[in-house]
Structures are given as structure tokens and as C-alpha cells.
């Protein structure tokens, strides 16, 4: 402070940043990283005579490479929905390792409520229920599997939340247990057999386009349902975390659980609520995934929990709780899909992709730590 100002100069401890200004949101850094990555992949593609994001052919009605963007959105939508729940769990200072297994478990159970009776005139060869005894379990209205999915996800999330809130075991252990057990349930359900052939209405959940063709001038996009659901849920939870008591309590608990408790927040009940919501979101991901693939397998969603955590961490969500946002996770998810699609677009081998992906996750956390330390030192 070179010139005298009206602000008190005491107690600032020589901090370099201007304390009278609102601190810049860390999401800006994530957005910057995303833009840099897109530009880099665009340049790399141009060297090979292609384009990453733009349409190189003249006869199509969109300037963008719609196919690539569609694939990116689909890649990211399912795991992104899981990441929305995982973000909330991490913000309250927890961790959820079970979301991938909840996807697998929900996928198996849900698919058994979504099957069609006859396939090409013959009885469904992969029918879960006995055709003579339980014919009414086939061709159920689509609302039934949806409700079942929500209930399965809610149940798994509730168990997670109750264990963590009331037995006080670390979230890592509780959700690790759920991760193993839920995977066990999905294998036990059919002894490892896949369940296939859903009803047409169920298949339409992911393979339809509720929005139809969306056109803004030169940009045209046929809204794919999983991407639409992801975006809607992201907006919903962004608003919930930012503007409602639920969000305020979540950040308070992750920031200082003792203070939250002393302020009268029912911390245990809130934790149960957050883990339940995370469970339901994993189940929604399972719905979209099975509907897209027209089949459910016991191994579905394997390691999705790690990708979801990675999206959140890349998006600036702090594993120590209290910091991060839904918007950050959405940007993290976008970075995630740009990495995957980008490497594919320049024809980099899949093995290298995995290696670089890991390095980028670690790099994002290192950057975050560095930034925090620098800010703490002033």
C-alpha cells in the first residue's frame, strides 16, 4: 500500500492480493485450461489436415463437427451425472467410491424391470423372469424401471449415508464396502449373465431426442437425451448448491464440521441426504447407460467412480472439503472429454491416452495445491 487509503492497513499481514476486491472464482482457471486444451487439439488436428471442433466439409448445415461434439457429450454425460453427486459428497468433506458399483447394481436390477416379452416373434431369450409364471413382469410401462432405479440408488446412498453419519466410520471405508457389495449384488442377480432386450419406450430414454433439432444460426445440434439430462441436472444442482440452504450447509460442513454442528446444523442428517442424492444420481446414470446400450452387464460402471472423482478434482473441487462447485465439475467433465476425444482425433494410442489422463489428474491437483499455498502465504 503505497498511498494512504481509507481502508485500515492493520491486520492484513502483508498480503499481496487486494482484500477489498472480490477474489476471482477458481472456475475461471478451469475454463482457461479447457480453452487452452481445445486450442491445442485444434492446432494438432490442423497439422494433420483435419479439424478438432469444426466441420471441414462444405455441404453440411453446421460449422461445427457435430459428430465429434455428440460423441464427447455422450462420453461425458453418464459419468458427468455421477460426478454431480460425487462433487456434493466431496464438498461436505466425504468421498464416494461406490458410485460405479451402484451403476452396475442399478443397471442389472432396472433392466429386469424394463424387458420386452417377445423379440422377433420369439420369447425374450435373455428374459430375467419366468415367461409362464411372471408374464406381467414384461413390457411394463417405462415409469416402473425409472422408479425402481431411483429406489435402488436411494437405498444404496442411504446405507452409505447412515453408515458414515451414525457409525462415524470414515467415508472411504463405508463407500469402499458398498463398492464391493454392490458389485457383488450385480453379479449375483443373474449369476453374471447380461440382461438384454428392453422395451422400445425404455430404449428411447437414451436413444431419443426430446429436444429435436436445435438450431442457432450456423450452429445446429440434435439434442441427445443423455446430454440433455446431464445439462438439466447440472443446472439444477448448480442452483441448489449456490442458492439454497442445502448448499450453504454442505459448504459449512465441509469447511468446519465442528462449527457447523455448533451452529445448530444437523450434520448427520445432512450427510445422509447428500449421500442419498449421490446414490440417486448414480442410478440415473445407470438408467441412461442401459437404455443407450440396450443391455445390462454386471461389470457396468466399473471405475466410473474414479473418473467421476477425477472430473470433480480437475474442476477445482478440493478433496479436503468445503471448496469447489458444480460448475467447476461440469468444466472438469468437459476437460475430461476433450482429452479423450482430442487424443483419439490425433490418433494417439489408447494406452498413451490412459497415461496422459492420469498425469493430467495429478497435475490438476498439484496446481490447485500450489495455488492455495501461494494464496495462504500471501
Amino acid at each position, binding site marked *: 500500500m503505497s498511498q494512504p487509503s481509507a*481502508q*485500515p492497513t*492493520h*491486520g*492484513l*499481514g502483508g*498480503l499481496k*492480493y487486494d*482484500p*477489498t*476486491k*472480490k*477474489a476471482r472464482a477458481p472456475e475461471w482457471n478451469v475454463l482457461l485450461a479447457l480453452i487452452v486444451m481445445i486450442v491445442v487439439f485444434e492446432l494438432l488436428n490442423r497439422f494433420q489436415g483435419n479439424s478438432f471442433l469444426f466441420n471441414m466439409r462444405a455441404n453440411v448445415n453446421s460449422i461445427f463437427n457435430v459428430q465429434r461434439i455428440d460423441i464427447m457429450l455422450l462420453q461425458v454425460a453418464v459419468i458427468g451425472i455421477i460426478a454431480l453427486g460425487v462433487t456434493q459428497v466431496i464438498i461436505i468433506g466425504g468421498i464416494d467410491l461406490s458410485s460405479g458399483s451402484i451403476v452396475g447394481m442399478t443397471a442389472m436390477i432396472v433392466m429386469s424391470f424394463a424387458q420386452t416379452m417377445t423379440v422377433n416373434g420369439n420369447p425374450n431369450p435373455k428374459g430375467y423372469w419366468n415367461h409362464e409364471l411372471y408374464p406381467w413382469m414384461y413390457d411394463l410401462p417405462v415409469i416402473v424401471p425409472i422408479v425402481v432405479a431411483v429406489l435402488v440408488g436411494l437405498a444404496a446412498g442411504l446405507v452409505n449415508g447412515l453408515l458414515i453419519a451414525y457409525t462415524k466410520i470414515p467415508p472411504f471405508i463405508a463407500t469402499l464396502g458398498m463398492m464391493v457389495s454392490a458389485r457383488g449384488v450385480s453379479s449375483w442377480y443373474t449369476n453374471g449373465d447380461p440382461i438384454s432386450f428392453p422395451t422400445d419406450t425404455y430404449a428411447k430414454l437414451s436413444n431419443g431426442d426430446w429436444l429435436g433439432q436445435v438450431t442457432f444460426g450456423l450452429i445446429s445440434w440434435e439434442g441427445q437425451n443423455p446430454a440433455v439430462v446431464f445439462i438439466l441436472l447440472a443446472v439444477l444442482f448448480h442452483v*441448489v448448491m449456490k*442458492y*439454497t*440452504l*442445502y448448499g*450453504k*450447509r454442505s*459448504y*459449512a460442513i*465441509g*469447511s*468446519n464440521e*465442528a*462449527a*457447523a454442528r*455448533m*451452529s*445448530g*446444523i444437523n450434520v448427520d442428517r*445432512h450427510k445422509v*441426504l447428500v449421500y442419498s442424492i449421490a446414490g440417486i444420481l448414480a442410478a440415473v446414470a445407470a438408467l441412461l447407460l442401459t437404455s443407450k446400450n440396450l443391455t445390462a452387464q454386471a461389470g457396468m460402471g466399473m471405475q466410473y467412480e474414479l473418473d467421476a472423482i477425477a472430473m470433480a478434482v480437475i474442476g477445482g473441487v478440493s478433496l479436503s472439503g*468445503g*471448496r469447489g462447485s458444480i460448475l467447476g465439475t461440469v468444466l472438469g467433465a468437459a476437460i475430461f472429454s476433450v482429452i479423450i476425444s482430442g487424443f483419439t482425433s490425433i490418433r494417439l494410442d489408447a494406452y498413451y491416452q490412459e497415461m496422459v489422463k492420469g498425469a493430467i489428474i495429478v497435475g490438476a491437483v498439484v496446481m490447485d495445491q500450489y495455488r492455495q499455498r501461494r*494464496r495462504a502465504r500471501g
Partner: protein
Amino acid sequence: MSDIILETRGLTKHYGGVHALEDANFTLREGEHVAVVGDNGAGKSTFVRQITGVEQRSAGQIFFDGNEVRHTGPLEAREAGIETVFQTLALADDLDVPSNLFLGREMFKFKLGPFSWLDRKAMRDRTLEALKTTAVKIPNVDNPIRNMSGGQRQCVAIARTAAFASKLVIMDEPTAALGVQETAQVENIIRGLKERGVPLILVSHNLRQVFDLVDRIVVFRRGRIVASVLRGETDGNDIVSYITGVKGNAEGAYA
């Protein structure tokens, strides 16, 4: 005597075999500011913890605002009107100043259980108002308090207490970790409470501060109240004599 806001009779706390607090008889009148002094381990903080409901007493009675009370936690005590600044700050680092001030008592645009819509503007306005009346200066209330100095954070905690003060304020070593100017700021807040007629129990080691601020000084020694003297009738040497045990009979002092 209806102007007594807080009274303890025979208040006792044992931790296992340790008698941290023994037969404490204490009264506080409306608008009165009382300092609680004593050596480390004399029982000051134990005394405060019984009143604020952080711990459950072993024996004795507490009367608050005319009724005998047995608060099961700090929250219950707060709802009854006892606002406390604890030695360990009860603030959430990642939240901004309004969110910390209103933590656990948020204002809403409309209520919908846990998904109630926060009235952030009203909370921000009330915060600025509270900081103004308590003369606490915070450069920007919209920043998370993680970025603020220890003194500023302490001021936020005290402003929270002062803003919601209803019947009784308790401060446990509020200036222990503060610089000179920040200490002055906190002392101003305390004077503001006096003007508003809010009674205060101030735990402090700082005798200069005690003589500046309060009406009466209560001395603890080895878990007992050994003296209760009006500020005008004593001096620093007198108080130190009580604290060190040169003066005062440990048996049966009535504060």
C-alpha cells in the same frame, strides 16, 4: 431480585478425580459486565463451559432469566439467549462473512425444508449493518474468511455474537491472539454491548483490559471463586494477590 439474569448455586464440575470447579456461587445482573480472572487451570473456562452447555455439570444449579436451566448443548443455550465466543473459533473458513454470521440461522426468501431459498441480499445487508454497529472493518465481506487475518476472523466471530446478542454474551479470551489495533476494536465492541445494556461475562488474562471494561471482577483460584470485587474498590495489586493466593480465603466466597 428480578434483575438477576444469571445465577449459579454450588456449581461443581469433576473430571474423574480432578475437581476443576468447586461450589461456584455467582450472580450477574441485567446490563452488568463482569470479568472472570484467574491463573491457568483456575477453573475459568470450566465455569464458562457449564453455563454455555458445552459440558454437563457434576452438581449445582444454574438459573438463567428467572428459570433453572439445564442446557444439553451450546445450541440450546444459544436459543435461550446465551451467545458465546469460544476460544476455538467456530467459523467456516470457506464461507463468506454473511454466511458465517448467519450460519445456522439463515434468512429465506421461501422455505422448502433443506432446499429453502436463501435471501442472500437481506443477510448481506444485515451483516454490513452489524459490522457497522460493532465498528468492525472487513475489506470485503464477499470473500471467504480463509483469506482474512486472525484478527479479522476473530472480529467476525465477535460481530456474530454481538449482532445476535439477546440476553447474555460470554467471551472466552477474545483478544488473546490479537494485535494492538484489533484488540482495541474488540474492546470497542464490548463497550457497545455495555451501551446497549447487554450483560457480559469476559474471561481474560489482561488486567489492563479488565479494569478498562468491566464493572466487577470475579477471581477464580484452584476451582473456587475466591473474590468478587467492584472495579472501583480494588486495584491491580489487589487482584493479583487474590489470583496468586496471597489474599483471600478459598472457603465460602460468594460472588
